[in-house]
């Protein structure tokens, strides 16, 4: 067998060195994890009782030395009759720009005859205390200009606010719901959401966002 020439030897040495340098690098090869390490994420399901909403675990109650918030909470039970009265209006609109529930009233803000810009508010108000025999009634404001976006109340379940308030009372007994309203939240990709503001003896401390089915989506707490 012929002995390799000097140039052949150099070439072989070069190849070996090249391979050695290549293999001794600090590289590490990564590959796809096993299938069981890539589980499909699951969606949070709507519980039968909203008090079982897992997202309520995110609320951290504060120590208020046994004191409760000194506020008059809104009355979510007003929404059912208020909604019925509002829909009985001769020119009832199903698209609103605002819906808010207070302790003694419910406000519906919408466009008069659907004309964008002519914003009116219908107040559903309980009888005054000094006139308990007065029937609850709706009053309308004069139109003012506004061009806020609208949401539909066709699928609005009037019992949801009451369920939410009950759930919060069970899970966060030291807190009181201060405000209930429907707000547009395009960042959620939803037409509108319920927002409930919680207060305790120290003041407002959390906001709960829920969709029209009552599913609690977001808890914001400062």
């Amino acid at each position: 067998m012929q002995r390799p020439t000097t140039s052949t030897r150099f070439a072989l040495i070069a190849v070996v060195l090249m391979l050695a340098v290549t293999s001794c690098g600090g590289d590490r090869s990564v590959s796809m994890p096993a299938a069981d390490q890539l589980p499909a994420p699951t969606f949070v399901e709507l519980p039968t009782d909203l008090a079982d909403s897992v997202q309520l675990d995110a609320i951290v109650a504060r120590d208020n030395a046994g004191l409760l918030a000194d506020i008059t909470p809104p009355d979510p039970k007003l929404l059912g009759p208020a909604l019925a009265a509002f829909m009985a209006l001769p020119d009832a609109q199903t698209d609103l720009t605002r819906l808010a529930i207070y302790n003694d009233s419910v406000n519906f803000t919408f466009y008069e005859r659907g004309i964008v810009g002519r914003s009116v508010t219908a107040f559903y108000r309980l009888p005054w205390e000094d006139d308990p025999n007065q029937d609850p009634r709706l009053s309308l404001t004069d139109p003012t200009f506004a061009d806020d976006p609208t949401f539909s109340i066709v699928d609005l379940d009037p019992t949801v606010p009451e369920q939410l308030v009950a759930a919060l009372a069970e899970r966060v007994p030291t807190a009181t719901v201060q405000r209930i309203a429907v707000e547009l939240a395009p960042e959620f990709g939803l037409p509108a959401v319920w927002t409930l503001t919680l207060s305790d003896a120290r003041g407002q401390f959390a906001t709960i966002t829920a969709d029209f089915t009552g599913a609690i989506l977001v808890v914001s707490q400062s």
Partner: protein
Amino acid sequence: MATPGSAPLTKLWKSVSLRSGAIILVVLLGLLPVRAWAQGTDHDITVERSAEGFKSVTWTGSIAADGRIAVRVHYDLDETPRTFDLRVPPGAMNLAVDDVPTAADVGRHATVEIDASVTITYELAGRVRRYRDGALVVLAGANGDEDPVLVADRDGSELSLSGDSGLFGCPHCFLSPTGYGDTPVFAALYAPGAAHGTVLVNGLDPVRREPPAGAEASADAITLLGSDVRTDDVSLLAVIPADAVPDIERSEGDVASALAAFRTRFSDSDDRFRVAELADRLDRTPAWILTALFALLVLVLVAGPRLVTRSDRTARRSPERQGSGTEVPRLSKSTRPSDLSPAMAALVVRPDHDQSFVAATILDLVNRHIIRLSGKGHNQFTLTIPVSPNGASDFERQVLTQMRPLGVQPDPPKETQIVAPPVWHTRTPIVARALGRAVIREGIRTKLVRRNRLPLLIVPIAIAMGVVTLSQTDGMAFHAWSAIIIGTAIGFVSAARAGILLTASGREQRDIWTDFASWLSGDSELERAEVRDVWKLGEVLVYAVALGAAPRVARALSPGRNGQP
């Protein structure tokens, strides 16, 4: 004059401009297989610069029928306990950290404690738009806040050190003072028929789409892995079957238009969405194809002329040659060996020399009394071209036409007288080019030569390499288009300048005329001969001029000793 036999390609290499073109071509096309080999190696991603303390990100998502997406982002870190500020992506719902529901503050921030790893889960809505031909999903980090439907998940992967806004938005670099390395990123998207969809990625390089495997990663899953080497976030788009989201109302338009809008949005930045190719397409096949095509190109450029030369030599040596091809009588060396015209003899024997074929043709016309030669002094002479030169061939008529004023037949036709020297005055370059082309046409007509088409192979090779690169590789589009355009141009230029090759008949003639030329070249009388000696030497002087044995006559009648056609 053009170069027959192996000469054209030899000449190509001698030509500086064409050699430069060949070098450019070799470099340009050679890089395509090199890059394809680099890209089409193993399916696994190789991490070269690991980020300090940061091991990987795993992103998984599920798409519901109504278009909601459940997202799970898992960060695998080292075991150093850290406190992080979690920036919640806009629209995130049901936020949880390590499966614990988590509140975010008004600015959508949350504080998380991390030790070794952390898993963030949330849901998103409004990230899917359904079209008639599919559904487009914005999965992560696509900067579309202004678009309420294609709005980006301003990636839930965004973690940063609290209070260190300089690193805000960079999900990985928070751990490494020297950079965040090429962090491995794994992703899986689950939806009915997702495996038949497409994922578009920005920020991962390299990236591979993996075929579904295992029970979880079924045909309803699309999985990919990549390495984040250049950007501070990773953007993902997916196209899935429209049936995967039946509860969403169908939008106007189609997926292609939506994707085009997305690409336009990114056109002004360095970010580019590109399709994550299936790993089984990223094997070595394109690299092999490109290498084979490149080898063919090298064969054309380098081995081609050698093969021509070898076949030429073989033809010269072959004993069968004597009994095949055109039968040419082998007479004595002193006898004109065949009926070739002086121009054709010059073409086959001395192709890369000057314009002596023109001088030989003029002298032949004088010898045949088609034009008249009269002497005035020692070296001066007059050529008279009649109104209608009878007996001249087509090629000879072209020579005579070029000899007339401005190279055109006078109108009305009249006799032309040329007092020489010089014969050609200032039109030498034009005449050289025109008659050079004419003699090649005559050679092709008489089947002594043929055009050299070999360099034209460069064109389909360059186009094929470009097409293979565009269709089979990733991220080399500009290079591929450059190869196609420049390669095609160089191929055509090379073909145009590569000249001609001798046919078998031409080689036969060259051999026997070379013997005759050798015999003529030893004659000192021919070497010293002047134009007027044609009256004395006749046809011998004519062929001596054609074959380079009478340089003084050739100089006197040629349109340029070094002119090239």
